[in-house]
């Protein structure tokens, strides 16, 4: 999936299911949108569904440093690359 498509999908998820209003790619997710640890776990499940494979515990822990939508996109791209041979 291209970064452009990923962005479209992630923003749609954040707006439709996490009730984000006017999300900016570099907004601080917690400060601007009240995104918390529960949301992070829920979003990871959505990302797994989108990617079509399960993330390892270690890979999920890496997501805990995410702060912005751009970070989310970087993370997904890196996961896609890491699982290319799966």
């Amino acid at each position, binding site marked *: 999936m291209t970064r452009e498509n990923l962005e479209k999908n992630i923003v749609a998820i954040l707006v439709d299911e996490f009730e984000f209003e006017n999300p900016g790619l570099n907004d601080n997710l917690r400060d601007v949108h009240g995104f918390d640890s*529960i949301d992070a776990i*829920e979003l990871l499940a959505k990302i797994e569904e989108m990617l079509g494979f399960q993330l390892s515990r270690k890979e999920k822990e890496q997501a805990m440093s995410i702060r912005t939508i751009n970070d989310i996109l970087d993370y997904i791209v890196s996961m896609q690359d890491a699982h290319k041979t799966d």
Partner: protein
Amino acid sequence: MTRRVVITACSAITPIGYKKKDIIKSLREGRSGVKPLRDDGLLTDHIHSKVFGTVDYPIDYGFGRKDTKTMGPVAYYACQVAKDVLAASGLSQDFITSGRLGVSFSSTHGSPTIQRNIYKTFFGNLENGFSSIGAVDYLKSMVHTTAVNITRMFGITGRVIASSTACTTSSQSIGFGYEMVKYGMQDAMICGGADEYDTTTVAVFDNLLACSVDYNDTPECTPRPFDTNRDGLVVGEGGAAVLLEEYESAKARGANIIGEVIGFACNNNGGDLILPNLDGITSTLRLALQDAKCNPEDVDFISAHATATKMGDVIESQAIDQVYGSKPYVAGLKSYMGHTMGTCGAIEMILSLYMMEQGFLAPTLNLETIDERCAMLNHVPEVIETKTRIAAIQNFAFGGVNTCLLVRDV
């Protein structure tokens, strides 16, 4: 030193209405909230009892995802009635978050709907490898989900009590909240209970031959507490909350004082976990009177537990007769809506407060031919216009838990 504890707000979502005026209308007009059991696509066809105390009107919750992401259906009921009592109370935001306000609230077993979803997810997705259960399903389904969703929604930082004791859940919630305020551990408590639509509970009572089955085609004719032709309980749903406050501070801030909790008792039968126990129940009723420092003849009205089971109503009648004789009026309010399980004590207290305020007593619905073993009581035969000064709310649960709350008009 002990402090007086008053009720300064209440709210109940019940099968006979949500707003006070709707509930009072139902009580005055003898309108039942028992309806045909809704199909759950799983157990309904296997259950003999086809009736349920149903909340079938829309409720405008207005909760955002920030709140609902940790809420199952039971927490919607709980948070809605908690929101109502806080709004009606006029308590300041500073007080609400001060640590001096606590929550005593629970349900029979959290959210069975979410628990069922967990198993569906688990067993349904094993083969494709996506067996992960929703990360917040535990928060939505755990036994104290109602209490902590209330704290979360309103930023409450005081004590949390989540007593989950089946049919005495919310009467214990109120009783323990009363003790928190009475003994100075908290200045105010939001107390109550909730239970959502759930066929598991119906199935359990059905298997115990305790559910009503003879009135499946005429749901409004059951349950029939104290009636010769009663055939068991009807499970129901709902949510109810009361706000308890220390009397002096409530008075000083000009709060609307609805009533006063003057006594509470709770004990256990110390044996059988199902059968009602005359000694245990009688003891509870007497302990509550002692706590309230009042005599049996001071009590004007008894809201009986009265589930309409064959043995339960008889044992309760004997207990009332032993403790009170035939002076106080007695009614079984479950006759209007079935047994709302963890919610029933709070609902029955609120209905009693409404009737105290309005100066009437509603009769036990469907009580047409009084069982001779229950006939020694002073049953409310029809709507009576009368002033109630002190009311007793009695509840008994599986597990041998008995409770009695005494409230007074202020």
